[in-house]
């Protein structure tokens, strides 16, 4: 939910009071997803005309129209392009404000009736059906650092850490698909290193390594260029992850010729050619196979591009022989084949990449390794402990995927993975010893699931104490998929309090001061109870009954809607009961990760369809992953025509 377009900080803050309720609006039409999309579209158009257009014209356009654009907002273009993906984000914001009775402002002359408000909200809720069916762009994507290292490993057997010097990067949604001189220099230097490792420079006779990687010695009298072209074909097929075009082989043969012209022996010239393969865009990017893309519109990914997209999603590396073979035979886009391949890839140990790439980011554990902890207070947060916390989460995530369990099990389970390092955090140091991580059955109902998992509890804390606010935000955003707005600018100070009194308050009492201020209260009355519900876990996830001030932990609280809880285990139960929200959240996050972009417009309809299918199956993980990997936006791409290409030729 975006609240950025509101005119002032104060109004923004006031707008928050209804933000939680709006989050369910996307579900309004869910029950109807099986109906014909065209009928839904017609419905949506009518709801828009009846509920939204008159509302906007009567109550909004005076301040947010062509003439006055308060807060930079103008609804005039939005009325005629309601389904536009970028405008859809504005509509969501508008709905939040209207629902919260924040707009129209209290001092406006005309105020809508409750039924007018409801009609407006109903109209907005259906706007997704006005969007064009659109898989989104899938611009040629550079391999991530991890993918690049793994691919070099699969190609030449080198250790993936050969890529360690490349800049670290964010993967999935938010991925910076760009390339700078620095990276290109490193690609060249890593290519040199790979070749140095696999092809030690040696004597005059061809080595076994040369024959292994660059083909056998041509018969005497054979045309070396013909032999080199065969080598180029085989190298490029693997490294480009698709059959190379003749023109692409011509380029590689040109490099071979360059070497020969400069007096290089046959294998040395091939080596230079192999280096050219490793710095070519066809290796560094996932590129389509087709020589001529259809002009304009939407295309289905070719089978090789699909094979790469799938294998980089689930394995973070290039397709294996079976996947490539299916692509060669043009079978992969067959939905049944694709599904069975997803299942196969998930069974393979390489699918641990799902946690390292997606799971760790989702749970926030990617930052655990480098996070600062107060060394005096938490001396046990050494490298071994951090590793064990990460591994616990990884193995837990992995078990849910491999055993094809429901997403609910992420929140509510009765087992985890521990070793002797981590066991003391659970108070299980007498039962679990040694360095090996193993599955452990839990009897404490407060544990089991990500809400009571030390790695999560530690990364959502400050270096020296817990932060109920951070934990509250984490649960809302990462587990339930709600968007918590950042604090408004110009947060007023809590300075009017008597400092002595404040010093004697518990953290909870101090944090509750937020709620004495109207600007803060709207958000914090929702965030804080969840965070305080987890206060029995200290900043590294140990159970405690008293906080740092010595005051007893009061973990009791209430969620919006009046659901009360008195301990972490109750909170866990309440959140686990929201299986639809948990599933939708994970579906949206994983889809965005798979597509490497934010979801927008038509994606919402796609998610609705996915939810329908997943619900029937109890929201099981393999089904979720399979449905996403076979979904319309994953298997298709929107392309823009290339008319301008010759004009912009550099």
């Amino acid at each position: 939910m975006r609240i950025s377009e509101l005119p002032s900080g104060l109004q923004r803050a006031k707008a928050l009071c209804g933000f939680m309720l709006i989050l369910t609006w996307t579900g309004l039409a869910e029950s109807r997803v099986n109906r014909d999309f065209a009928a839904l579209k017609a419905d949506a158009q009518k709801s828009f005309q009846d509920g939204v257009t008159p509302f906007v014209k009567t109550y909004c356009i005076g301040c947010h129209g062509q003439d006055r654009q308060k807060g930079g907002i103008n609804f005039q273009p939005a009325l005629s392009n309601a389904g536009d993906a970028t405008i859809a984000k504005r509509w969501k914001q508008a709905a939040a404000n209207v629902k919260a009775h924040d707009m129209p402002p209290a001092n406006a002359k005309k105020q809508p009736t409750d039924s007018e408000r409801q009609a407006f909200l109903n109209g907005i809720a259906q706007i997704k059906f006005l969007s064009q069916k659109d898989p989104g762009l899938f611009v040629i994507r550079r391999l991530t650092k991890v993918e690049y290292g793994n691919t070099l490993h699969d190609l030449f057997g080198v250790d993936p850490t050969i890529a360690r010097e490349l800049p670290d990067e964010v993967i999935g949604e938010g991925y910076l698909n760009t390339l700078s001189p620095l990276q290109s220099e490193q690609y060249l230097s890593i290519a040199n290193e790979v070749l140095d490792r696999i092809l030690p420079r040696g004597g005059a006779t061809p080595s076994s390594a040369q024959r292994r990687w660059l083909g056998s010695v041509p018969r005497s009298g054979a045309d070396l260029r013909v032999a080199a072209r065969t080598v180029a074909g085989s190298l490029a097929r693997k490294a480009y992850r698709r059959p190379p075009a003749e023109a692409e082989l011509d380029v590689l043969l040109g490099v071979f010729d360059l070497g020969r012209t400069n007096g290089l022996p046959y294998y040395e010239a091939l080596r230079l050619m192999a280096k050219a393969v490793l710095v070519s865009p066809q290796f560094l990017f996932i590129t389509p196979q087709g020589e001529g893309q259809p002009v304009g519109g939407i295309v289905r990914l070719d089978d090789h591009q699909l094979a790469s997209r799938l294998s980089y999603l689930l394995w973070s590396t290039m397709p294996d022989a079976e996947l490539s073979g299916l692509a060669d035979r043009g079978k992969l886009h067959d939905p049944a084949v694709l599904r069975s391949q997803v299942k196969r890839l998930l069974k393979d140990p390489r699918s641990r990449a799902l946690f390292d790439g997606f799971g760790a980011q989702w749970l926030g554990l990617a930052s655990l390794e480098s996070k600062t902890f107060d060394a005096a207070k938490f001396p046990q947060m050494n490298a071994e402990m951090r590793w064990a916390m990460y591994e616990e989460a990884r193995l837990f995530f992995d078990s849910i995927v491999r055993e094809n369990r429901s997403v609910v099990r992420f929140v509510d389970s009765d087992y985890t993975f521990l070793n002797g390092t981590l066991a003391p955090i659970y108070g299980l140091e007498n039962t679990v010893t040694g360095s090996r991580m193993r599955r452990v059955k839990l009897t404490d109902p407060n544990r089991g699931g990500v809400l009571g998992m030390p790695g999560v509890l530690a990364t959502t804390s400050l270096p020296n104490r817990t932060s109920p606010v951070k934990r509250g935000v984490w649960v809302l955003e990462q587990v339930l998929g709600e968007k918590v707005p950042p604090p408004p600018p110009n947060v007023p100070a809590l300075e009017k309090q008597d400092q002595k009194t404040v010093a004697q308050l518990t953290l909870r009492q101090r944090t509750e001061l937020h709620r004495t201020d109207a600007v803060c209260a709207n958000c914090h009355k929702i965030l804080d109870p969840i965070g305080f519900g987890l206060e029995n876990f200290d900043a590294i996830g140990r159970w405690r009954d008293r906080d740092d001030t010595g005051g007893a932990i009061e973990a009791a609280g209430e969620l919006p809607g009046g659901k009360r809880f008195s301990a972490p285990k109750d909170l866990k139960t309440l959140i686990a009961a929201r299986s639809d929200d948990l599933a939708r959240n994970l579906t949206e996050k994983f889809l965005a990760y798979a597509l490497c972009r934010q979801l927008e417009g038509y994606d919402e309809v796609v998610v609705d369809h996915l939810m329908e299918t997943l619900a029937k199956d109890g929201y099981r993980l393999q089904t979720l992953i399979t449905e996403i990997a076979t979904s319309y936006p994953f298997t298709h791409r929107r392309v823009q025509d290339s008319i301008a290409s010759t004009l912009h030729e550099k």
Partner: protein
Amino acid sequence: MKSNHRMDRRTCLKGIGASLALPFLDTMAWAETGKSKTVKPPVRLGFMYMPHGVIMEQFWPKSPESFLTSPPPALASLRPVLNQCLMMKGISGVPIAPFNGAPHALELSTWLTAALPDANQRDVIKIAISADQIAANFIGGFTALPSLELATMPQTHKENQDGLNEGYYSHCSFRSATQAVPAEINPRNVLNRLFGKSNKTGSSGKADPLDRQMLDLVLGGAKDLRRKLPRDDQHKLDEYLDSVRSVERRIAAIEYRQKEAALEAAGVSVSKRLASDSPPIDIKIPEGEKRSEYMEVMCDLNVLAFQTDTTRVSTYIGSTPNGVSYPELGFNDEHHSQTHHNNEADKLGKVAAITAFNIAQFARMVQKMHQLKEGDGTLLDNCIMMWGSGLEDGNVHARENLPFILAGKGGGSLNTGRFLTGVKGNQGDLLTTLLACAGIPLDRPVGIATKQIREMTTFL
């Protein structure tokens, strides 16, 4: 800073010697000795960043008069070079509406662009070329590296503010509107990159003589591929083409140096350095994880890159707006959490200490530059080094008077030793003026700029 950068105790550059320090294009005017005795060294432009603003009372000088005589506490470390510094109060940051919910995502990314992201395509990078990269386009062509980008922390922060791409959090350099430039965080790699040395086992350590021509052929193939792709793919491939061309140029620079070194070895003097210029500084790569030592070596690398004219443009993201602590200062609190200080003494003190720490790293760097002779003056005389933050007051995310310090005379273009108050201008005006001081012709102002700031310079 990650732990896998533990290095040898020290790495000295002794022996690389004089052959380093040469611009490789003969069209270059600098150092063409023999024709004129007073050759003007080039102006170099460096930017160093700290997020979250400052404690104003401790940062801004009390008055123009007291700037040199009794500077505020935050500037204590700069005292020896205050005469080479220029401060101005009244430069406003880019107003960030409609991204009011993204103060931290935008503090770094607006810093050198003076522009806002495209509000309709928030999840991709779409902002504007940054001032350093504009400079790199003009003066970067004369050196082995068009520009040098450094950072202390990996640029991997995951946080979604107002739907903006995560890259906005941790990048300040943009080669084009859509191309964020990653920064190098490993000092060893920076050293290798600057001087083309390889420390990898089994590697010959020399540039492969055919690499440049090989890349040329690959580029030709990439252009063929480009022709067949849809438009968005073409734009992506353009970044590839651009970056590979830059690699070709770097190889050419290294080859040039190798030739010169060979000539020197054969007794033919080709050095264009003045005998009176200081020799290249030593680089000591620290072993531990101490932030001050790490920042020191990154600053030293910046000094060396400028001194040897390996590049003329640099950025150093000294710290990033997320989860950064300074255990070295005796507390573990995260920088950001302390900046929302609500005027509590404890937090004010910590923010002031963090600010002083960052400025001290900058001060060390510019003092080192001031000690290095170059031409008729010092290296610093020919540099424009800017330290700054993207917010004025982190407590309330204000950006009315951006805090920054300029050091160096920019080849005589900057009028230093002064604190100017009541200056009217914005971040774009400041950057536009700095580029003008570096002799960069602009066909349009940077970001929101409308003018140059006359008071800063000696020539306007």
